């Protein structure tokens, strides 16, 4: 059995380093996870690794008891039945609306055509943001580098996650609206939350101490 008595879904990518550091603090042996980036399942450590957007899926289905993922992922998948237990503070990013620097295509589109065209990977967050601010929007879902979309004239602006704003600036884009700040969150399966209450509470207590 792992040190925590739980199976933990760990996100690969930007959140992985910070997550493994936290798990070290819980007494989980993360050495093998750090040294082997092809393996996905680490039974001795009680860790499964996956892309961040899959973490709520595995946790909802109980394949992992708890998991760590970004708030952006949770906002994009609100129908997932998981507990959101803790704001872990790291992996801080901003969900923003950006456009070509100095170019008011968004304003002009809205005025003359009655809607803005926005490219994004986060269609739910974007749809809700524009609905809340009373603007009609035509969303274009893209998978890869969103920065390209306004440069080619396909859209008036983008909704995307940015940590430093560097990639945006390098592509001649500027932030015009900040939608929400996203950090890493601890989530739990609703049944594990009841049946493994002591184990989960111990993790929450330890992480509260570590992150505050």
């Amino acid at each position, binding site marked *: 059995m792992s040190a925590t008595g739980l199976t933990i879904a760990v996100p690969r990518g930007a959140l992985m380093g910070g997550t493994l550091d936290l798990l070290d603090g819980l007494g989980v042996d993360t050495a093998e996870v750090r040294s082997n980036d092809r393996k996905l399942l680490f039974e001795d450590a009680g860790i499964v690794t996956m892309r961040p957007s899959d973490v709520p899926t595995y946790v*909802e*289905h*109980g*394949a992992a008891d708890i998991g760590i993922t970004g708030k952006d992922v949770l906002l994009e998948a*609100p*129908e997932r*039945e*998981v*507990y*959101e*237990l*803790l*704001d872990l503070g790291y992996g801080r990013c901003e969900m923003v609306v950006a456009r070509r620097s100095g170019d008011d295509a968004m304003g002009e589109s809205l005025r003359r055509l009655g809607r803005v065209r926005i490219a994004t990977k986060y269609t739910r967050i974007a749809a809700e943001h524009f609905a809340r601010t009373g603007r009609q929007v035509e969303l274009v879902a893209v998978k890869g580098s969103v920065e390209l979309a306004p440069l080619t004239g396909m859209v008036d602006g983008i909704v995307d996650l940015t940590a430093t704003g560097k990639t945006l600036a390098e592509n001649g884009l500027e932030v015009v609206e900040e939608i929400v700040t996203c950090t890493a*969150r601890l989530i739990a*399966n*609703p*049944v*594990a*939350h*009841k*049946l493994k*209450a*002591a184990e989960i*509470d111990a993790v*929450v207590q330890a992480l509260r101490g570590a992150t505050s």
Partner: protein
Amino acid sequence: MIHPIPAGTRDVLPDEMRELRAIDERLRSSFADAGYGEVWTPMVEYEDVFAAGVSDRSRVTSTDGATRDRPGASGGPGGASPPTSSGFRMFDDEGKVLALRSDMTVPIARVVATRFAESERELRLCYSAHAYRTVGHRTGQQREFLQSGIELIGVPGPDGEAEVVALALSALANAGLARHRIGVGDGALYRRLLEALEVPEESHRELLACLTRRDMVGLELRVDALGLARDARDLLVELPELRGGPDVLERGDGPAGDALARLRELYAALEARGIADRVILDLGLVRDLGYYTGAVFELYDPAVGFTLGGGGRYDDLIGRFGAPRPACGIAFDVQRVHVAQAAEERQR
């Protein structure tokens, strides 16, 4: 050629049907042995029957103000459903609006208030029937599901609840489960706490919505923003996290004491029946249905990550159809029980 069936519905073929039927039979025979008589009600009802399932007050507590207070918006987990109708509606030849039932509790409340209006006796009713709800289009969520359950009418307080909990546990054991547990909480507990701590009324809705969404981070953030005294703040954040054995009743004691006293009585009744080891007391348990007034239940099995069903006490519901009676009940999602039974079998 592909002839699709609607998302969230399914065909059941003989191998599965045999097992499903066996489980359903075992649940029903448990209910029958305990003196519960089976009823059928129409699959469609006039829409206003379901509107009675939601009071103004529960509407506030069970919604986040966005999608959930629209009739038919998708409900919560295992057995939870939208507080009004299923969301599936049709017109009859006179232009009246009919709705597919979203659960059996509301139709049975109507039956009790109309067919048994003169009766003062205790009533024990059970059912096994399909119910319907609109859900998001993703795998695993059913728009049509088979519910099996019991309603105990006319037995107030912990006696009634303990009978329902005990029968739910033994029926699941009879259906082949060995490791199932039941979460027991009080649906009115957190609202009581908010009132006792004099949290401004306009914040209640948001806080309860966080709890219903299981968003503990959002809950803490909003509680912090209220600027309460340290004790009150801690209680509001920590009480819904309390779950486990009877010690949570001590740890949660305070302004919500009366609701906890009810839970303590219920726990004593469950101990007396020798089933307390199956019970998880859960002070954060809320059900996403409009009609619960006291104790609420949720069923779990460690072999699966979803709830198998749930229920609770609904002392106001039958009165909304004109003949007030205390009542409580519980329902299983039969297909989920089947999945849990198969998963337990694999893990043995």
